[in-house]
């Protein structure tokens, strides 16, 4: 079994804000991330597949094809966007990276060929803050 990873990136604005709470409560919980006029990040997305190398190609899966699928179904929806306002699959959700990585998995998984096993998504919000998601285990 081999794990193969493709890294993509996108730049986006967001805020952490629970609309059911007052502004004071939001600031207490989310601090400066609750700034109502947004802030933003350079996000890095690591997409890891697992499988046995194909005897004919030596590939688990062609990462160029993986890159095209990730770009079409994930990056194009997120890059240079406002995660709270512009992204259909985040509508009505809190835009934490925890929720974002789950949303990306749900967005991406149905578009991968059946022979491909999605193992892990790792999403960096800053060089020092990241989340990992392995799907529903």
């Amino acid at each position, binding site marked *: 079994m081999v794990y193969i990873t493709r890294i993509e*990136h996108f*730049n*986006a*604005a*967001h805020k952490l804000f629970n609309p059911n709470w007052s502004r004071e409560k939001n600031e207490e919980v989310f601090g*400066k*991330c609750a*700034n109502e*006029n*947004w*802030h*933003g*990040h*350079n996000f890095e997305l690591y997409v890891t597949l697992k499988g046995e190398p194909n005897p004919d190609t030596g590939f688990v899966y062609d990462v160029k094809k993986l890159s095209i699928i990730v770009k079409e179904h994930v990056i194009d929806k997120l*890059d*240079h*966007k*406002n995660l709270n*306002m*512009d992204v259909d699959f985040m509508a009505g959700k809190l835009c934490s990276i925890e929720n974002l990585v789950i949303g990306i998995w749900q967005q991406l998984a149905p578009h991968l060929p059946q022979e491909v096993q999605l193992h892990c998504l790792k999403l960096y919000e*800053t*060089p020092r803050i990241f989340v990992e998601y392995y799907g529903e285990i």
Partner: protein
Amino acid sequence: MNNKVAVYRKEHFNAAHRLNNPLWDDATNQKVFGKCNNPHYHGHNYELIVKLTGEPNEATGYVYDLKLLSDLINENVIEKFDHKNLNEDTAEFKNVNPTAENIVIVIYTILRAKIDLKFNLQIRLYETERNFVEYPAN
């Protein structure tokens, strides 16, 4: 003998912005600035590198105490821009397009006023890992 040494301090801030020229119509803005023109903004992790050049002080061995430089940058730059919308939340970019070029000039101007002129000052600003600017350009 020239004993000048360059010292550097890195800091970072996360901010939203959009590129837009209010004198142009939407189509022209879209054509020139592309996806950076999104009216709902987008954002970056900005990395800031402040370079000071001078001679080491005889008593301390320092060109400039980097803790003091860090405090200076944080108080005058980072607190102003971190977790902010550059277009909406900052006086500096009310009427200036917040491109990396204009941001680096603004940061230089703020810091130049706070640092003794005997030190040469140069600022490098990364908007992404692969897009960065430097001011003044030598």
